[in-house]
């Protein structure tokens, strides 16, 4: 808790005294009578929240008044509440801390829904505070009233409607605890206007008591022993690692297991960077657009260790054909993820960070030279393809260029579509929490605002948003936010004038009937769009034009850069497992 003293002295009550430590501040504030708005701000400061993504409105004006001139809480005024939840989500994925959102009632609250659902599907810790009409008016169809608790119930880990100002502090502390622990997820707190206006007592009591909420962290030791035995004796073992590695900060522990055993490892979209791809054991991504060799390895393996992954249908393909020859071990913090889609032989419920070292301790390196020979042959015969041209920019080579110029060290944020898969395939991911993508919900419009949030949380790292011309237009207005706060996000638009993935499916499965997937006729001039916001805009249509603009973009450190990069209109993303096919039934290209 080595905090800069200057940051501990946020202004609450306008004239709060100076404090050296959070503890001192808490002791001083303990037992004080405050308005709900003051309790809100004080509790956030005590929880070491540094950034709030928000948008003001009638029901939260009392809270916003407390943020006026507040030096402790950094408030980022987003331009649409959906952008706010995506930004908070990107902040959370990149930093590991819960993302915080503050919006008003009614439309402010309903606009957060897509972002909350995105976070929920990928288990991202968010705390979303929504204003609400005064408690006496709830249910009367009051102005800007929406039953946001009801609307978000299926897409939140938990939610609260605050009915007593003296419960507000406890609720906020519980909300952060629930969001960030166990399997993380979004928590919504609905704040009726009277709850922030009336006064109550700030207790400074940090203890959270939730008798119904006790996430399991330590795996069952006899199950871990069984798993170790299976892996030690395996002839064709494979590790399949998912987003749990990032969320559980277990990248090192996973790497140690692989280093000891030399077992090949494939990661899901959410797991990319959780294991360094520069190491020889990495088979890169599996699934619908996974590598040929990863999908073959999972089909042929005899022992499969799933770590922090949930057997999503984009990963498994047709269930009957998924890894049919393997004994399956599954480590996951969420018991309901185990045997939900695929029956497993050895379930281990626990935190991957705690379970993996136990497993590494007990496992003996299996004898798998023959298995590696097979895999290496697959790798040689079916590598990922990168077409090159001097005349136009191929999307695969674009990602390789970005990978080179950032030395694989950037935080890469994808939107949803072909570019997302090209990024996943061709960037050199070597660091955890460095590939951010809406994997579960597949939210177009996620990429740019999430990159903005990631950059706010990581001012020292390069943050790249790779987006399509379709998805970018869903949230492009957040350029205003990035300009206002001087966030140097690099936005690479893979502009093919189409909803590329939709077009690819229409080409392959709907007889080239490109129904309503062409955008080119009315795409904006993205360079002028950027410039109109005060951002920098570049365009490239040949490899020769691309290099200088990437270099210039890397040098800009005080504003967003939009790169309109023209790519071939009808380039497809391969390999591809058609929907409903098994993983070894890949299409490898024209």
């Amino acid at each position: 808790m080595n905090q800069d003293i200057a940051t501990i002295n946020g202004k609450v009550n306008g004239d709060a005294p100076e404090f050296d430590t959070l503890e001192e501040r808490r002791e001083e504030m303990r037992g004080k009578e405050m308005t709900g708005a003051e309790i809100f701000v004080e509790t956030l400061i005590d929880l070491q929240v540094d950034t709030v993504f928000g948008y003001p409105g009638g029901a939260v004006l009392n809270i916003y008044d407390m943020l006026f001139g507040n030096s402790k809480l950094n408030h980022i005024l987003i331009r649409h509440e959906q952008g706010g939840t995506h930004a908070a989500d990107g902040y959370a994925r990149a930093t590991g801390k819960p993302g915080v959102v503050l919006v008003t009632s009614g439309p402010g609250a309903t606009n957060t829904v897509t972002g909350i659902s995105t976070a929920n599907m990928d288990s991202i810790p968010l705390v979303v505070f929504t204003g609400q009409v005064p408690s006496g008016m709830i249910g009367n169809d009051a102005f800007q009233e929406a039953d946001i608790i009801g609307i978000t119930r299926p897409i939140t880990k938990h939610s609260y409607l605050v009915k007593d100002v003296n419960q507000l502090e406890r609720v906020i502390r519980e909300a952060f605890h629930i969001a960030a622990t166990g399997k993380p997820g979004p928590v919504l707190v609905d704040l009726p206007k009277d709850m922030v206006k009336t006064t109550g007592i700030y207790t400074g009591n940090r203890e959270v008591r939730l008798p119904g909420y006790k996430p399991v962290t330590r795996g069952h030791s006899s199950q871990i022993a069984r798993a170790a035995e299976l892996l030690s004796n395996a002839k064709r073992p494979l590790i399949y690692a998912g987003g749990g590695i990032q969320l559980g900060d277990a990248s090192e522990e996973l790497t140690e297991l692989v280093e000891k055993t030399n077992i090949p490892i494939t990661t899901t979209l959410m797991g990319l960077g959780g294991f360094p791809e520069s190491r020889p054991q990495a088979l890169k991504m599996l699934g619908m657009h996974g590598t040929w060799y990863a999908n073959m390895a999972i089909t042929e393996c005899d022992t499969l260790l799933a770590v922090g992954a949930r057997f999503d249908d984009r990963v498994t393909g047709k269930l009957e054909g998924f890894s049919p020859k393997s004994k399956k071990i599954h480590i996951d913090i969420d018991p309901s993820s185990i045997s939900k889609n695929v029956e497993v032989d050895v379930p281990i419920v626990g935190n991957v960070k705690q379970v993996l070292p136990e497993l590494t301790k007990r496992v003996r390196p299996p004898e798998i030279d023959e298995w590696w020979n097979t895999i290496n042959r697959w790798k040689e015969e079916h590598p990922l393809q990168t077409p090159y041209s001097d005349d136009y920019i191929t999307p695969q080579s674009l990602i390789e260029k970005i990978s080179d110029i950032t030395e694989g060290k950037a935080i890469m944020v994808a939107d949803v579509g072909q570019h997302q898969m090209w990024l996943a395939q061709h960037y050199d991911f070597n660091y955890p929490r460095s590939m951010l993508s809406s994997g579960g919900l597949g939210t177009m419009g996620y990429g740019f605002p999430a990159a903005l949030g990631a950059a706010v949380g990581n001012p020292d790292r390069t943050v790249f948003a790779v987006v399509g011309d379709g998805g970018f237009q869903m949230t492009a207005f957040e350029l205003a936010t990035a300009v206002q706060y001087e966030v140097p996000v690099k936005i690479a638009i893979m502009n093919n004038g189409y909803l590329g993935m939709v077009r690819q499916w229409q080409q392959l499965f709907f007889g080239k009937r490109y129904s309503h997937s062409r955008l080119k006729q009315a795409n904006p001039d993205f360079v002028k769009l950027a410039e109109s916001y005060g951002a920098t805009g570049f365009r490239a249509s040949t490899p020769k034009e691309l290099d200088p603009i990437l270099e210039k973009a890397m040098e800009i450190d005080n504003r967003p850069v939009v790169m309109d990069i023209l790519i071939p209109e009808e380039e497809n993303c391969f390999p591809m497992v058609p929907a409903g096919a098994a993983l070894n039934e890949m299409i490898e290209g024209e």
Partner: protein
Amino acid sequence: METHVKRAATDRSTRKHTISVLVNHSFNALSRIVGLFSGRGFDIDSISFGTGQEPGLARVTITTHGDEQIIEQIAKQLHKMVDVLKVHDLTYEAFVERELALIKVNATKSTRAEIMQLVNVFRAKIIDISKESVTVEVTGSEDKITAAMGMLRQFGIIEIARTGSVALKREWQGEA
């Protein structure tokens, strides 16, 4: 856990389950439980919600059906909820289960005696009477209530209200 998984792999037959859930007494908790079933495509055959012996807690009794894999998911998903303290699938052990039904049935002078005989057979009670109808209170298993309704149907049922099952684990299960 392991035995559950094994069973799931082999048993695909559907059966009725009675699940007892101890939750925080709040309507948000009840909504979340009902929403879980509708959102994930699970069935609710009956549900009852009432306060328990501890203040602030309520017991929800749900009867549902499904194969082992579905029932296992239901139990796990319920358990995941922050407001849920305990989930007990009573089906795997001895338990007592009761439902109460109020059945308003046509009853004229000529049929009243026969209805009262039937009521006695089911150890039910007549709790209201008018010139044209009687209201019968039946308590028991779901089967018994269905049987009572079946027998009363011939007189013409006017209205029915059923509580859904409430259930508790049987404590004394006898010597082996």
